[in-house]
């Protein structure tokens, strides 16, 4: 199983409600590879509940990840009240695994929307048997834009161009392609035509 799927599977088994967010989450909405960014970080929004958060951390640790908040390692076992404060204050933590350089970010808050709002608007895709709970594309792109970083703006503008190219094609080309199809059906296109 691919590393990112391992963690998603672990979250499902721990019954932690979570959403794929960030650029890696947006990837799942892509039509083709021209909209898929390869990123070293996978971002998750976890229900802002201390029990869910502890379960997510446990899952990461069992998979060999080291937990941090910012640059500080998170004490193991966690300090009393730590999960409660992270969830309450909407802070983010990370898990890093040296052997495959996997970086996972666990968020507990998301630009101006509650978890329930995001959860109710999610789309469930799948990778084989694995369910992928992905935040709405619009929510993800809005949040990336609000980060106000050049890399995130480039991702949003690339998405905008990709959607535009897909949804607003040259209308005359449809006519031209239809004409071509009709000529094929009529046997007018081919080696001997």
């Amino acid at each position, binding site marked *: 199983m691919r590393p990112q799927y391992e963690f998603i599977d672990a979250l499902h088994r721990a019954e932690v409600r979570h959403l794929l967010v960030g650029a890696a989450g947006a990837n799942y909405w892509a039509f083709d*590879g021209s909209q898929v960014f390869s990123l070293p970080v996978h971002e998750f929004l976890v229900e802002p509940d201390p029990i869910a958060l502890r379960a997510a951390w446990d899952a990461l640790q069992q998979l060999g990840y080291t937990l941090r908040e910012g640059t500080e390692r998170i004490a193991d076992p966690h300090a009393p009240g730590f999960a409660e404060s992270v969830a309450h204050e909407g802070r983010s933590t990370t898990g890093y695994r040296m052997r495959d350089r996997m970086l996972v970010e666990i968020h507990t808050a998301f630009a101006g929307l509650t978890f329930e709002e995001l959860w109710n608007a999610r789309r469930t895709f799948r990778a084989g048997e694995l369910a992928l709970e992905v935040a709405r*594309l619009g929510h993800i792109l809005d949040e990336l834009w609000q980060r106000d970083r050049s890399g995130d703006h480039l991702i949003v503008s690339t998405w905008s161009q990709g959607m535009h190219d897909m949804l607003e094609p040259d209308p005359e080309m449809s006519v031209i392609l239809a004409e*071509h199809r009709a000529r094929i059906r009529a046997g007018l296109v081919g080696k001997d035509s």
Partner: protein
Amino acid sequence: MPRMTAESRQPWKPLPAPEHGTAKFQLHVERFEASPWNVAGTDKGWVERIQEVHASGWPRVVREAPTEPRQRLFEALGEGKVRYLVIGVGGVNMHAATEGQKLQTLDLDLFLPLDPANLERAWEACEHAGWTLWSSGEPLDQPHDLLIASRVVERRALTTARAEGALPTDLTLVMGPFDFEDVWLRRTWYREAYTHVDLARLADIVAAKEAAGRIKDHDFLAKNRTLLDHLLHQEGPPDRKP
């Protein structure tokens, strides 16, 4: 049968993509979310398969690695005597001196002359290499002939080649304000796993991005200005001949 119109003889001039926060952007997002490829339950396993994980350290960007389908494509283009130039970010990466200088690209752009016969050969090469062809979001049905190639050239329409396990490859007939022959004369080359690849000069690639006026290109240039200036300085004046 649909009829060709006078308009279809003119090059297509697409409107710019909308900026984030505009009503048009929002509409695009909503339409995209409602698209058939985003129906709940769709298998998205391909998304992970297409990503190449950078092997070295802590990359801020992960570049596209050469893939077997891409290799086959370049071989077929060479065998088909197709005239093309690699442009776009994929072209920038071919100018990079080190792996660390390579930038993430989501597709590969090949610039072709306004020559229907050459375009037809390019399509045949793509299909021979196992890629499928699309234009304007629709499959380009086989077989092809000079007539459909001529129509595509008249509209300056983009053809996209897709193959499993490779990033899409765009066959474009437009490179900003540049004429193919001018860029061709200044071209350089690249060798990808023993295959010769014709490559536009970096200065032309960057100038085309600057002239394109798309937000995505503006953001790309702003984000990577320092690296591009360094590579442009290394490239120097157009005195090398392929």
